[in-house]
Structures are given as structure tokens and as C-alpha cells.
């Protein structure tokens, strides 16, 4: 077990930020903490890192209780936060070197690791640049390099892709997968479900400071009743016909807006076929048709009754 959070409670006055939060992170996982803004993801991370006091519960990292002076534990943790945490007065190379020096004593080793980190985030051409001269995407890459330069066993990324362009975001996600392949365990927090789905091997969905569901993405999707979402473009469907569709076997709900008929079906085979058959036999003309498996947003919606982006 790399991280074990047990019954964690954190209050800010009357506001309960973490409400008996529990989760475990196994070695080699990319563990995603998914939840809307204000759900308690960053608070949980800050508690794990012993940056924040908490009211109840316990946190173990690498099998030992975590605390501000647990330097042996800290030595194996890398942190990448939402805000870029570098020195404006130091160049790209000097910044990475500085943060590496906080972990490693040997100067030669520090320089080696610095070079490696620069290569890893592909900033070789910018090594002598000051952070202010870098674009947002490059700055994020520098931020990542500073967090992973010492080759930590556990890397915590707290919403690292907020306000990042799609190209840089993909590079960051690829980099995280690469770090994981090299042996690092990753904790990744985000409110972007697509990112979590893309890279995480295990996911905990948080709402109001509690884990409302956890497991692999398949396990999570298996927890809800929706099996498939069918979207059909049609211009001439009547209320009665929608009512008929609604009464079909396995159909859970139907909405019709802006000429888009959206049907949510339960798990089962031939959902699409029976819908198309009905439309054809009733002479309902239709255009584009596509189907979609349920997303983590559907999971969140079904469990909490609200959208992830709410």
C-alpha cells in the first residue's frame, strides 16, 4: 500500500471539507481523484502531504504515518500543483537544479538528474530561458520537471492541466503515463473526467468530502443502470412516438432537444436495433446516429443527482 487514507475529517469552521474520507492507493497505480470544484480533492492532497492539519482520521504513506518531519517519506514524493511553483529569477535549468538539490546531496547526481528531467519534458531548447519567457504550456512542463526531477516513487499531481491548451495537455498526460511505466505510483486529481478516464487505472469519485464511488472505470460504469446512450438526429418525431419509444424494453429515459433524440438504455443487447426498427416502421426519417457508452459524468450524475461540472 502506497497511500492509505482512513476516516479523514477536515473542517474549516462550520464547513466540512473532508467528511470521513477513505481511500487506498496501491503501488504502480495511476489513482484518479475525480470530483467537482470544491469537492475536497486539494484539501485531501494537502492533508496527505502534511501541509494541512486535519481534525480526525489517519494517513499512511509507504506504510508509515505521515507527518511534517517524516523526511524519509517526503524524499520519495513528488508534487505538481495547479499553480506553477518555480522561481522567476532562475532559469529553467537552475529551477530544476534547485528543486533537485532539496532532495539530493551529490552535485554530480543533481546535474545528471536535471539533464534527464529537461529531456523528459523536452525543454532542452529552453534550458537558459527564464520562466517569464516561456509560454503557458512550456511553463507547465517546467513545473512538472521540478516535481519529478528527483525520481520519486509517488507523484501527486493536483489539477496540473487547468488552463492548458489541448496539445500541452496531451503531452502532460503522456508524460504521466510514462512516469507510471517507469515505476512511479501516481495520484492524479482533476475535475476533467476525460483525463481521468484516459490515464487512471483506479478512480475515486469525491463529492462533498466523501468518496461516493471507487474502482476501475469499468467497475464504476458497471455500478449504474445506464448501459448505452443513443443519439439520433431527427426532425419529425411526435410526442406520441416518443412516448412509444419510452415504453420500449430497456429504455431508461428519452430527451428530445434541438432535433436530437437522446435515449438512455439499460444494459443489454440490440438497444440500437430496436429503436431504429421502430423509426423505420413508423416512417420517421432520421440523419446521423451514434451511440456512446456511459461516461464518468453519468456515474456521478446517477450517484449524486448532479453533473460533474455543476
Amino acid at each position, binding site marked *: 500500500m502506497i497511500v492509505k487514507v482512513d476516516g479523514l475529517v477536515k473542517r474549516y469552521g462550520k464547513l466540512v471539507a473532508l467528511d470521513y474520507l477513505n481511500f487506498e492507493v496501491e503501488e504502480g497505480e495511476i489513482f484518479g481523484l475525480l470530483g467537482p470544484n470544491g469537492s475536497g480533492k486539494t484539501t485531501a492532497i494537502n492533508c496527505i502531504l502534511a501541509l*494541512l*492539519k486535519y481534525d480526525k482520521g489517519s494517513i499512511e504513506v509507504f506504510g508509515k504515518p505521515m507527518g*511534517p518531519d517524516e523526511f524519509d517519506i*517526503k524524499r520519495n514524493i513528488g508534487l505538481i500543483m495547479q499553480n506553477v*511553483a*518555480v522561481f522567476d529569477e*532562475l532559469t529553467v535549468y537552475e529551477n530544476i537544479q*534547485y528543486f533537485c*538539490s532539496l532532495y539530493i546531496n551529490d552535485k554530480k547526481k543533481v546535474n545528471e538528474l536535471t539533464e534527464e528531467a529537461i529531456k523528459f519534458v523536452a525543454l532542452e531548447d529552453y534550458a537558459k530561458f527564464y520562466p517569464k519567457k516561456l509560454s503557458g504550456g512550456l511553463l507547465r512542463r517546467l513545473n512538472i520537471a521540478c516535481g519529478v526531477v528527483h525520481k520519486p516513487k509517488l507523484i501527486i499531481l493536483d489539477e496540473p492541466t487547468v488552463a492548458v491548451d489541448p496539445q500541452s495537455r496531451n503531452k502532460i498526460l503522456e508524460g504521466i503515463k510514462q512516469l507510471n511505466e517507469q515505476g512511479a505510483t501516481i495520484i492524479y486529481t482533476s475535475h476533467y473526467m476525460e483525463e481521468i478516464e484516459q490515464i487512471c487505472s483506479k478512480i475515486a469519485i469525491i463529492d462533498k468530502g466523501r468518496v461516493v464511488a471507487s474502482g476501475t472505470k469499468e467497475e464504476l460504469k458497471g455500478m449504474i443502470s445506464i448501459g448505452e446512450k443513443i443519439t439520433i438526429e431527427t426532425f419529425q418525431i411526435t410526442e406520441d412516438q416518443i412516448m412509444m419509444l419510452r415504453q420500449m424494453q430497456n429504455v431508461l429515459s428519452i430527451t428530445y432537444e434541438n432535433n436530437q433524440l437522446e435515449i438512455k438504455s439499460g444494459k443489454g443487447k440490440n438497444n440500437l436495433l430496436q429503436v431504429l426498427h421502430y423509426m423505420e416502421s413508423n416512417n420517421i426519417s432520421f440523419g446521423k446516429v451514434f451511440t456512446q457508452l456511459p461516461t464518468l459524468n453519468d456515474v456521478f450524475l446517477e450517484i449524486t443527482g448532479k453533473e460533474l461540472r455543476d
Partner: protein
Amino acid sequence: MVFQLYKSRLKCLFRNRVNIFWSYAFPILLASLFYFAFTDMFSSNNLETISIAYVEDVGYKNDMDYLKDVLEEAEISQGLPLFNVRYLNVEEASKALGEDEITAYIVNGEGVRVYVKKNGISETIVKSFLDSYKRSAYTIQAILMKNPDALSQGLLDDIMEYKSFTSELDKGAKPDITLTYFYALLAMTCMMAVNWGLDEVINIQGNRSSRGARINVSPIHKMKLLIINMLAAFTAHAAGICLLIIYMLKVLKISFGGQLPQMVLACLIGEMFGLFFGAAVGVWVNKSTGVQDAITTSFTLISTFLSGMMIVEIKGLIVKKVPIVPYINPVSLISDSFYSLYYYDDLDRFYVNTSILLFMSVALGVISYLGLRRKTYASI
């Protein structure tokens, strides 16, 4: 690792243009400003001979009147007369004044009156000179009425002789009021280290910045890092102070009366106080960085004001009215250390001042340490 961190921190400090301006360039600019202002104010070289007219009017009594002689003999410096006296009648004098040929004309009749066209330094000098003459003349007359033989007993020599009732110590230092400003400026520069101390603490606090959070997650002991960073700040700021001292000594040619090592020592202790004061504010004042900055800046400015840099008389007033303040005001302690080095033979007063400052610095260092150790935060 330690040296690498120290070196990196030094680079950060030397590349921070704002800090460098306020701690390096600003004191040098201010010193230059003081220098030019005071050179102008106290230099007698820029005084020039003043053209005046002397008019003997109706009612003039030659008896016991030496004004004409005094005007002729008055000098700015050896061989350079204070007045260029023309002897005219009232109409001619008035016309000369109107045409700016003379600065003033003096009419000596039933009394002595001075006529000027405008207000100015030369006009003020003429008036002050005449006031002084009148007072002396009145005194002489009063003495002679009581003792008519006084004149033969050397009254005039006595009255014209300038006597000082204070004696100079043997340090060879001439009392120089402008030095107070330069001392206070040096002390203020030392105190500017408060902002550096504050920055160092903010930088390593996890609840102040993402950078602080990242540093707190690292395995380095926070106190160790703070000491490294404070040493770097001390080095960088001390370099600024040394530069200022060198600039004052070599470029502005200000004489601090020797004892340079002690002077630098006082500066370094003062700087240490500044750093620890800033650190203590950073640790113990749980307010925004803006509020903390306001506290440190106000502290520096108020301390400097009370030490007399802005109004030199304030220093004396504080000593008279609230004598405890100079003993707890770091700027006063630093500037008074310089003052005692300049004016006194023994170093007792210097050691008292620097010891108090050192004690307060150590106390602030301990207070900062107690606040920082094992710190986790209630909120980030």
C-alpha cells in the same frame, strides 16, 4: 547541497530588480541627493560680495558710529569682502537699487534703515548684518554710559572677539550636522533588510505560495533551509551596505572619522536585526503578504523618522521627551553607534548600542524559530 541552495538563493536575490533597487540603488541615490543638497547649503564658496550703497542722511551723528568702517571691513573669507560699498545720496541710491546695480542701500540718519527691492539671500544677509551691528552698538553704548573708560580698557577688542564656550575633543572631528543624515541613511539601509527577511520566511511557508508548498513537501528541514536562505539574504544585503559605504567614502568623500571596521560591524548587526524582524513578522503576523509588507515598511520609516533622518531636530526631541525610545529604536541604535565612533574616544557607547541591537536580533531569531518549527497549517 547546502552550497548549491545558498548559491541558487543568492542568484534569486541578485536578480530581483525590485529588492536590488531599494537596497542598492535607492540608498546611493539618496546619499547623492543629501550630498548635493548639503554641499550647497553649507558651502561658503558660493557666497559672493554684495553691492550696497551707504547713505548718510539728515540727523547722522558721526559720534560713536563705526558702521561705515564695519561695512568696509566685513569679509566672507580672507581677502574677500562681504560688501562692495558705494557712497551715494538717497536719490542716487534709490535709482541704483531700481536699476539693480546694488542689492540694498543703508541710510544712516537718526537711525539706521535698510532698503531692499526684493527678498533674497543677499538681502537677508544685509539685514542680518545690520541687526547684529545694531545690537553690538547698543551694547557698547550701554557699557560706555556706565564705564566711560571701557574703551581704553579694550572693550572693542573684547566685543569683537568670538568666544566659544564649548571645547572640542581631541578626535579632530569637526561637528557636522549633515553626518546625522548620512548615519540615518546607512541605518535605514540596514533596516531595509526587514523586507528581505520577510521574503525568506514567506518563500518557505507552505500556506503562502505553491513554491512554499513544494519546498515543504521536500525532505529538507525547514529551519536548515531558512538558515541557508537568511545567510544568502544577509550576504546579498551586506554587499549593498558595503557598496553604499564605499560610495560615501570614495565618491562623495564623506569623512566618517576612521574606525571603519567598527562601523561595518554596526551595519552588519543592524542588518541582522532587520532580517530577523522581517522573519518574525512573516512567522507571527497571520495576515496577507500586503499587510506584512505594510508593517515592515512602516516600521522602517517610523524608526528612521524617530532617528532624525527626515527632521534632524526630532532626534534631540525624542531623547529629551521619551529617552527610552532611542534604546529600542534600531535605526537610532545604529546611527548612534556611528555617531559615537565619530565623536567619542572610547567605544563604550558604541558597544552598548551594538550589544542592545545584537540582543534584540537574537531574541527575534529565537521568536521566529519558535513560530516556524514543525508548522502545519489550518488552511492553505
